[in-house]
């Protein structure tokens, strides 16, 4: 009577050690490319006599990064707080508004075209305006830029996730005599989570961009963006590059943190299950 049972994957013998070994082997090609890239960069500067204002040597950037590390991390933390604050405010408001719009459809029809249009405009252009609205030296002006940048992709994706539910899923809920809140809790919101996390990953990158570019238009001397701008203006290129390195590390860490939350929050999703099954 029963269909063929799905064969259950058993962890191979010598499980953990071997799987860690395999993980490491998977990373070898990528690590090799990194090392090779750095060597080519270093050598190209020597061979072609590339000026340091165009591109400093990786070793000079690394030593600058090491010498100045406490100041750089301090600045990085300052800017990261702006990005994180903006990310939380922008994404939070976007999720709330998306829930409202998904509940009251006519409101969605009125607002959504503008949200989609706004998603396509270069919002970063408003950074100087935000400096005018809020104090340029405060964190809040950069948070505002980051928040606006995060808002639109999260809003648009969340609305899509909440509303792209199969009609039959809703009919089943109707047949169980489920109320509107139950439908949101048990069908629409879980359905929207994969969409939400896709948007949050984009938003984390946008938040860092918003904070740093916002700082280019003026900000506290503690801020990473201000340090990048000033050091380049004053021909301290290695310092500028070292600050960019910090910004990159923070940006990647932010992104990976969201990936980690995603893996826990939607562990049921086939894309994640299959990755783990490899």
């Amino acid at each position, binding site marked *: 009577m*029963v269909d063929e049972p799905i064969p259950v994957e058993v962890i191979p013998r010598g499980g953990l050690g071997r799987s860690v070994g395999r993980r490491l082997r998977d990373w070898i090609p990528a690590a090799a490319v990194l090392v090779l890239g750095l060597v080519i960069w270093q050598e190209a500067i020597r061979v072609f006599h590339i000026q340091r204002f165009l591109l400093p040597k990786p070793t000079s950037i690394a030593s600058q990064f090491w010498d100045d590390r406490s100041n750089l991390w301090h600045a990085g933390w300052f800017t990261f707080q702006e990005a994180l604050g903006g990310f939380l405010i922008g994404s939070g408001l976007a999720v709330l508004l998306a829930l409202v719009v998904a509940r009251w459809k006519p409101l969605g029809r009125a607002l959504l075209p503008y949200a989609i249009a706004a998603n396509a405009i270069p919002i970063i252009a408003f950074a100087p305006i935000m400096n005018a609205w809020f104090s340029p030296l405060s964190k809040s002006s950069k948070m505002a830029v980051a928040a606006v940048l995060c808002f639109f992709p999260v809003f648009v994706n969340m609305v899509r996730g909440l509303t792209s539910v199969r009609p039959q899923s809703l*009919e*089943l*809920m109707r047949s169980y*005599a489920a109320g509107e809140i139950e439908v949101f809790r*048990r069908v629409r919101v879980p359905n929207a989570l994969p969409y939400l996390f896709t948007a949050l990953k984009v938003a984390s990158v946008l938040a860092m961009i918003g904070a740093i570019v916002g700082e280019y238009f003026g900000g506290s001397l503690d801020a990473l963006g201000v340090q990048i701008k000033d050091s380049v203006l004053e021909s301290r290129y290695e310092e500028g590059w070292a600050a960019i390195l910090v910004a990159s590390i923070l940006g990647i860490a932010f992104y990976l943190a969201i990936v980690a939350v995603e893996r826990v929050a939607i562990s049921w999703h*086939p894309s994640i299950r299959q990755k783990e099954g490899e």
Partner: protein
Amino acid sequence: MSANEVVRVEGVSKRFARGAVTALQSIDLSIVEGEFVSLIGPSGCGKSTLLRLIGDLTEPTEGTVTVNGKSARRARVDRDYGIVFQDAVLYDWRTVAKNVALPLELAGWGRAQRAERVREMLRLVELDGFESHHPWELSGGMQQRVSIARALSFSPSILLMDEPFGALDEMTRERLNSELLRIWETTGSTVVFVTHSIAEAVFLSTRVVVMSPRPGRIANVVPIDLAQPRTAATREDPRYFELVTRVREALHIGSDREEPLARAVER
């Protein structure tokens, strides 16, 4: 009205697109407790619409639908229906066990009670051991069995099935047919079953309602007097073939009134 009448459809018409399309016209149908009634007909005959009207997933333009002596809407709010669609419509974020438990959660069952019921239901559809699997890890036939377990979990008095095995291969389909009959016997529920397979309708039903299109009407009702319980041998019973032929003829007469006999003989 007999004492144990479960579904009563009276003078029901349904028009779509602001009256432009008549999906159903003047339908009268009565289903009593414990019956297994199949609705069969070509596409566009309104068989799914009739099922949806009974389940209060849509409302009639004219006429009334009475279920267990109350309005269809009241019956839905009272959770009198278990529904199974052609797609299993399982929730990907829930495990098999949690999918089956969903209607119970909504009905406010306690945790222990739910777990007990889910175990029972999965045993009924022979899926014990798959509790913690996710829907996409199962084959189409297994998914549909989960869907049936879910529809039956809260013991609804009526099971509404809209081409539940339409997307499955012939082998799986026959297996699930027998399984459905076993479940029907065990639970004693009333089943309304939409299909476009004549063989399936005859094998499963106590009564086959033959419908015809444009506008959707009931063309004929064929009582199926094959012995219960039905087994593989039923499919080889001469009476089974007679009834298949009767339903086929009724279908052709219903859908093609100009040349009924010619078509019926040709087949």
